[in-house]
């Protein structure tokens, strides 16, 4: 019998889980295990994506046990795209980490935790009921916090502690929402809930608790304050994963909930409120990115800003129902670009021994390939042509204009200008003239090239817009 897309998807959860266990038991073999299991996971994800592509969306209970007792997996275009995004970024980060993590102490822990995080994220994307989502959300959160604390310094531990508290608070709010939903409808399955949903008081309260809990984990302005210290103090591969993937996981849940479960609850006021929060994030994050003195802080605040775009999905969906596809494509483009930027920042930090922008110029001129990768990814963040970011912005502006939402369209354009400001603020140092830094430490080639390859993925996304949108159109949650 041929394996279906769902079988592949189940493997995409199981494989990294086994890898995490093995890497935990045999920390010395961490890099080898990480690479092998990373490749296998990517393979399984490829199978799952092909499955969705050919057979359309599927859902089934794990091991033959259907809901409510079993664990339901559901795989549609949105989930498949998220899996693919995680696999591409994850693979590049894994290869990068081979060169980045040299001290054996952190290395042993990193691989187990990272594969664990990968498995939890894949499980989260595949979960088809609200309680499973809670469990996977908690797994993702714990693994992410542990990775943040990995470097062990006071700043990292403080940031991790803050992140943990925020994350647990968010999860509990979400769980309270789950309890209320079960109380109201007696089911947990996303599709069943969506079918039964009534716009009553309990549902609204549940929606509020779940959404705000997830907002906390997504670090939407003004709940973003935990993000820059956590992403700024973690090791570079971890920052890349946190900024590119982990925050997207909670955003994915918000989107999933409002697409499949709560659409009957949406009212203009709510859409406007979320859009306003997004706009606030965009402006505030950009301002702070223009202000930050350290490279990784710039990149972290850029994440805060770009997360704002994601929440434009609410006002845009009000005017153009298909707008969520544009936003998901934006998330995809942002994931690739932001991971590249963090990896490049890590290389520069490693080469210079610090990441203070003012003194980074000389090192940047010695690392042309890394700066080139940073430039490409930065262009994607700004939305310059021939990158995934451009297609994403085009789609966003297009859906905004289709609905005559001029304000949101100009906000998207203004955000691009602001992003241009902080990207060129960094890149400007590479063009300036300055003394040659004698402290330049060469960066391992594997780091340089994995960064560049991921940057080229951003460019490839600029050429593959049509395919991604086609995959997204295979949406199966509403059945």
């Amino acid at each position: 019998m041929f394996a279906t897309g769902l079988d592949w998807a189940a493997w995409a959860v199981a494989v990294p889980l086994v890898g995490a266990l093995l890497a935990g038991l045999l920390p010395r073999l961490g890099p080898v295990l990480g690479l092998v299991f990373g490749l296998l996971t990517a393979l399984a994800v490829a199978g799952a994506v092909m499955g969705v592509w050919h057979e359309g969306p599927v859902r089934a209970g794990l091991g033959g046990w259907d809901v409510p007792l079993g664990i339901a997996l559901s795989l549609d275009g949105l989930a498949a795209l998220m899996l693919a995004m995680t696999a591409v970024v994850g693979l590049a980060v894994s290869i990068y980490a081979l060169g980045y993590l040299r001290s054996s102490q952190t290395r042993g822990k990193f691989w187990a935790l990272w594969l664990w995080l990968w498995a939890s994220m894949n499980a989260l994307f595949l979960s088809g009921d609200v309680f499973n989502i809670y469990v996977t959300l908690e797994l993702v959160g714990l693994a992410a916090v542990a990775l943040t604390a990995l470097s062990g310094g006071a700043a990292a531990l403080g940031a991790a502690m803050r992140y943990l508290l925020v994350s647990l608070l968010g999860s509990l709010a979400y769980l309270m929402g789950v309890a209320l939903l079960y109380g109201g409808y007696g089911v947990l399955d996303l599709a069943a809930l969506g079918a039964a949903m009534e716009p009553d008081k309990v549902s609204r309260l549940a929606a509020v608790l779940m959404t705000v809990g997830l907002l906390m984990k997504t670090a939407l302005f003004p709940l973003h304050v935990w993000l820059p210290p956590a992403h700024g103090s973690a090791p570079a591969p971890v920052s890349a994963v946190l900024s590119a993937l982990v925050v997207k996981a909670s955003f994915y849940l918000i989107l999933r909930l409002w697409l499949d479960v709560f659409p009957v609850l949406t009212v203009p006021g709510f859409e406007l409120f979320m859009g306003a929060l997004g706009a606030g994030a965009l402006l505030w994050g950009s301002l702070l990115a223009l202000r930050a003195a350290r490279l990784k802080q710039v990149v972290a605040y850029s994440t805060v800003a770009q997360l704002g775009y994601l929440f434009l999905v609410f006002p845009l969906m009000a005017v153009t129902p298909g707008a969520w596809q544009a936003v998901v494509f934006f998330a995809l483009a942002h994931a690739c670009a932001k991971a590249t930027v963090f990896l490049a920042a890590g290389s520069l930090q490693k080469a210079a021994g610090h990441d203070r922008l003012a003194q980074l110029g000389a090192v940047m001129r010695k690392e042309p390939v890394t700066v080139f990768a940073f430039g490409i990814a930065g262009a994607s963040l700004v939305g310059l042509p021939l990158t995934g970011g451009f297609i994403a912005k085009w789609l966003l502006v297009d859906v905004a204009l289709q609905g005559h939402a001029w304000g949101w369209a100009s906000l998207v354009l203004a955000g691009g200008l602001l992003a241009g400001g902080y990207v060129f603020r960094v890149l400007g140092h590479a063009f300036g003239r300055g003394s040659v830094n004698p402290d330049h430490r060469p960066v391992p080639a594997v780091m340089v090239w994995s960064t560049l390859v991921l940057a080229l993925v951003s460019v490839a996304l600029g050429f593959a817009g049509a395919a991604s949108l086609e995959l997204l159109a295979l949406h199966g949650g509403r059945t």
Partner: protein
Amino acid sequence: MTAALLLAVPLLPLLLAALVPWRGMTRLQWLTPLAVLPGLAVVLFLPDGSHASYPWLIMGMDLQLDATGRVFLLLTTLLWGAAGLYGLGYLRGQDHTARYHLFFLLAMAGNLGLVLAADAVGFYLFFALMSLSSYGLVVHAGGDAVYRAGRIYLIMAVVGELLLFAGLVLHVSAAGGYHFSLMAATPLQPVTAALLLIGFGIKAGLIPLHVWLPLAHPAAPTPASAVLSGAMIKAGLLGWLRLLQLEGPGWEALGWLLVTLGLAGAFLAALVGVLQSRPKTILAYSSISQMGLMICGVGLIFLLPDLGDLLLAAVVLYALHHGLAKGALFLGVGIVERRRAPWVLAVLAVPALALAGLPWTSGALAKQSLKSPLYEALPAWVGTVETLLTLAAVGTTLLMARFLWCLWIKGAARPGALPWQMWVPWLVLSFAALVLPWVWAGEAGSAWSLIWPLILGVVLSLAGLLAWRGLRVPQVPEGDVLLPVEGLARWLARTVRSAPRLWQTAGDGPARARLRLAWRRTRHGAARLEAGLGRWETVGIVFMALLVGVFVSLWV
């Protein structure tokens, strides 16, 4: 086959651009001029109306060759090929050739691609690729003046991109699709038209948006100036021809605007250009002046829709003639810099005279074909426009005389070897400028209206030469109106900055210090607020507030 060939036109330079920057790939730079070959093959072998769709590429891309596109493609391939070959000799022994070739090939891909693009997304992509990578060409030489030119160029280019983007998206959403045929079927809204007019106008040197041009063209390395002035500014013109919906009942207001601005540009640029002393700056002003004539032609299409076809053909022919001649002139500047010989000047005089409209040159043909439809037109004002077009040739002649003069007295600034890679493309381009438009279009009409302005120009030049020998020519800074604008911007910024402090301090500190202070205050304010948001108590309060806020918003 057609699909592969059409796609190869922009793809080959892109592929080469991906290879050129790597260490050990220096030899590949020799392939740069050859990257235009697919384009040349398309011009020579594919019939009009060839098109291909690539639904898998970007958001579904369409490439198409039509009659207008063929002329522009011919011009683009010839200029880029010649400039590419020229660049090999020009940059020999210099640093950073890999960087130069990277940007050169990227801009080339953009320019070739936009000629063929048949949908808005593709057109915009290639246009932006060309504009933004040209920045790398403009600032290649380095130095403060060059960086200033680059900064102005970048600001104008980015503003242009933004307007263009907005205009295209507006029109696409009005038309419900981004194929050009679909977009042509939907009437253009005035706002959209204005956005497109300004967006492309910046590239085409429409006054008063031309300010980047006299700065950027002299700043760039000579082969890059040639393509900037010969091919790239034509992209703005092509954008208008493609998107402003020339066919149809005509649009009087737009037509008058274009005719006025075009003629004003033709005369004012000639006036300012004559007062310049750097040869490449004079050529840049001449480009603005010539583009003014073409812009006037586009305006006439809107005013005289009956003659639309003839005028369109004339504008396209004019673009071909001017692009080739201007390219040859720019390349010649680099030749004279290395070898100041009479024969060089003699060859240079050929495209210069052609630009001025010497009978039996391509310039005569182009001017004639632009003017001859006007003889038959009824409205009385057409005669005035025709006279003004003729008079503009006087300005061109003066500009060319001034150019040759300045070039000659300046002499060989950097005497050195003259490799064949430099003089062969120059000669080819000069020859092509003279002959090619003829091959394209047939014969010219009466010669007298061409000759008298030329003679008048020559006489004026000689008289000026004699009269102004001892006199100082009034100096107009390069970029003319830019300087007051720059000054105004600085003054505005200063005033705005100092306004809240006027009542505090009467003393006037340096403006830069104040700017720094204001920015530091903003930063500190932001930092304080961010720190406040970061306090754990605030997180709890904000969390609660959001719970309440979302809950309330769900009721509204």
